[in-house]
């Protein structure tokens, strides 16, 4: 793996407001996902797997949990003397308060951007679940001599689409206007100098929206190309997509697209022992992390590290986050339990597919 001349930037709070159930205590980047990961792990690992060795995490609020998760960046091999991982905490300009959009956020880390020496910058949002082949994206960017390369996913549902001629982007527009199903993804590659000048100019005009006010406006002025992401993509933009995204992991094809031996998803280690199954356990179609004790029944569920499911307890279509305890004979269906939740003996909790019941962090039911 060669080292790349590219800086990675990840917006770790973009979309917080769409998932209030889980982001009241953390940034969306550190929302637990898929038994042992946090959302940011997918972008971080994809970047690292493409040889990007300098990554900035752009934060805005409630990022203690994110800071705790990423630490010094070692699990992603980003504990480096040169480059490595930086948390770009919010930078408040005199009197204006916290930033409102991604342009403000980038203005806030202008020093970091200007001091960096990498020729290119790749920007992405932490709420994108995908194992992106940045290598291929970078190669395409260089081969086409592009100014901006924007990622898209064919067939995905979204609010913006790319009207294209071959790989060339003609317009970023609504689905009807674009007349394609090339769904725009908040992930793009750009020359660092160009990004800096675009941000400075946008700031002068008091623009706030990076996609609408900058990327869209400049389509005609620069060479924009689209990069189609192969494989699984899910944008976490609400409880439903969060729930469905987790449940997607029950499909082998999705797991194979996300978790590749040659491009693994890294995360913070917990040094748990392997999971133990009791004599009466009944597990069917479930993804389970290390450190669990499973003595009850678990169907179609996502079980995070260190969860205990006691005898006679029954889980169906549930997401139980780290260190949850489901006591004997409790019955749960379509429940999302945040970290350290305890469900007392014999309780029954029912959500439904389109409206899963969410139990807040640390609660006892």
């Amino acid at each position, binding site marked *: 793996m060669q080292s790349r001349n590219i800086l990675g930037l990840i917006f770790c709070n973009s979309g917080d407001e769409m998932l209030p159930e889980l982001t009241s205590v953390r940034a969306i980047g550190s929302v637990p996902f898929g038994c042992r990961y946090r959302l940011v792990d997918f972008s971080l690992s994809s970047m690292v797997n493409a040889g990007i060795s300098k990554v900035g995490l752009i934060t805005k609020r409630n990022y203690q949990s994110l800071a705790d998760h990423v630490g010094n960046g070692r699990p992603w091999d980003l504990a480096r003397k040169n480059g490595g991982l930086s948390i770009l905490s919010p930078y408040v300009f005199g009197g204006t308060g916290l930033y409102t959009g991604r342009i403000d956020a980038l203005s806030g880390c202008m020093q970091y951007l200007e001091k960096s020496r990498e020729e290119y910058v790749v920007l992405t949002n932490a709420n994108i679940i995908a194992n992106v082949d940045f290598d291929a994206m970078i190669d395409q960017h260089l081969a086409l001599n592009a100014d901006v390369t924007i990622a898209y996913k064919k067939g995905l549902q979204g609010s913006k689409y790319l009207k294209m001629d071959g790989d060339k982007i003609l317009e970023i527009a609504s689905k009807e206007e674009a007349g394609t199903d090339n769904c725009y993804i908040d992930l793009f590659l750009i020359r660092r100098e160009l990004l800096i000048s675009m941000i400075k100019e946008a700031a002068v005009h008091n623009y706030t929206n990076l996609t609408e006010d900058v990327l869209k406006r400049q389509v005609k002025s620069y060479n924009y190309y689209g990069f189609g992401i192969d494989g699984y993509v899910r944008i976490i933009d609400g409880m439903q997509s969060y729930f469905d995204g987790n449940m997607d992991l029950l499909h082998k094809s999705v797991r194979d697209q996300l978790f590749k031996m040659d491009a693994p998803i890294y995360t913070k280690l917990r040094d748990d022992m392997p999971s133990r199954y009791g004599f009466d356990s009944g597990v069917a*179609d479930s993804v389970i992390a290390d450190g669990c004790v499973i003595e009850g029944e678990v169907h179609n569920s996502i079980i995070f590290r260190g969860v205990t499911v006691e005898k006679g307890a029954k889980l169906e279509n549930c997401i139980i986050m780290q260190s949850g305890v489901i006591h004997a004979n409790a019955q749960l269906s379509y429940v999302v339990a945040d970290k350290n939740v305890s469900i007392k003996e014999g309780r029954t909790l029912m959500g439904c597919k389109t409206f899963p019941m969410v139990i807040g962090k640390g609660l006892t039911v």
Partner: protein
Amino acid sequence: MTKKTDCVAMLLAGGQGSRLGVLTKNVAKPAIPFGGKYRIIDFPLSNCVNSGIDTVGVLTQYQPLVLNDYIGSGQPWDLDRMNGGVHILPPYQQIKGTDWYKGTANAIYQNISFIERYNPEYVLILSGDHIYKMDYAEMIEYHANHNADCTIAVLEVPFEEAPRFGIMNTNDDNSVYEFEEKPPHPKSNKASMGIYVFNWLQLKKYLIEDEQNPESDNDFGKNIIPAMLKDQKRLFAYPFEGYWKDVGTIDSLWDANMDILNPKIPLELDDPTWKIYARTQAYPPHFVTRDATVQNSLISEGCFVAGKLLDAVLFSGATVEKGAVVRDSVIMPGAKIEAGAVVQYAIVAENAIVKKNAVIGGRPEESEDLESWGIVTIGPDYIVGEGEIVPPKAMLGNG
């Protein structure tokens, strides 16, 4: 010279482990996978860190590549330190020539200069082939409180098993008056666990003297301890209570893995105050399908289970396909048990493949001749062909 260190641990990891056959063909015994996600050496290394010992020398000799790679900077055990940390110590060329490590004592003798760099009060000698959790700090405190020259950790074993061990005969105050290696008629049941604390300056003197004796086997048990006893040095037995197992044979390795599944055996690997650390690959969580039945088993990250497990230990990345049965067995990292295969009383090593409908091993209760019954061992990367039958006690490996 760096800051004075209280105690340097020296971990003997050079043994070939020939009794483990195909399992140690390409790796040293301490690097053998254990307990779903660990390797044997994780136990003494984690014990060191949990006991506050941050300077560890790992003496390697036989097939060290995997072990070197595994230990690396020592980061997984928090042993990448500014002062001290973990160091791999293979034999090296010196002015007087080059020698392999001739015995356990000679291995330490050859590394006197390593130990001197830290100028320690005590040296802790450990083996790389035991599964146990032990607070070495307590043992060192015991050693200091007894004003001992050498303290040997002992475990009380059943008298009928005592002839297999090195036995410490002690006075009422736990002082040792005699050491007997594998006595046919043991006077005591205090078995040496191969864990020693020495006052460094004393040990250094005995190592140098021992080296000058051409008759010596340069072994702690055979030479150093008897020499110290002869000189009436203060040797004490430190009684250890808890789980301890030498995993030097196929049977004991299999037993120790099964012990994890036994709730009555006190080897809690999930004790948050005494974690066992390991270097792990970035495996995804494991998946259990609707076709699977899992009873009293251990499953690690990266596993895929669609078959039937009963009393099984599945290591990271192992696969058990639909219709396959794994009972009373140890399936090491990346091994694959294909559809319809039956694996019983077996150790299937790393990346081995058991093809469709093969039958591995058998149950003792169904065996006509218990003498010829035993645990089957399938070596690393070995492929058991479709429908092949492997009888109990067989050992199969490549090359």
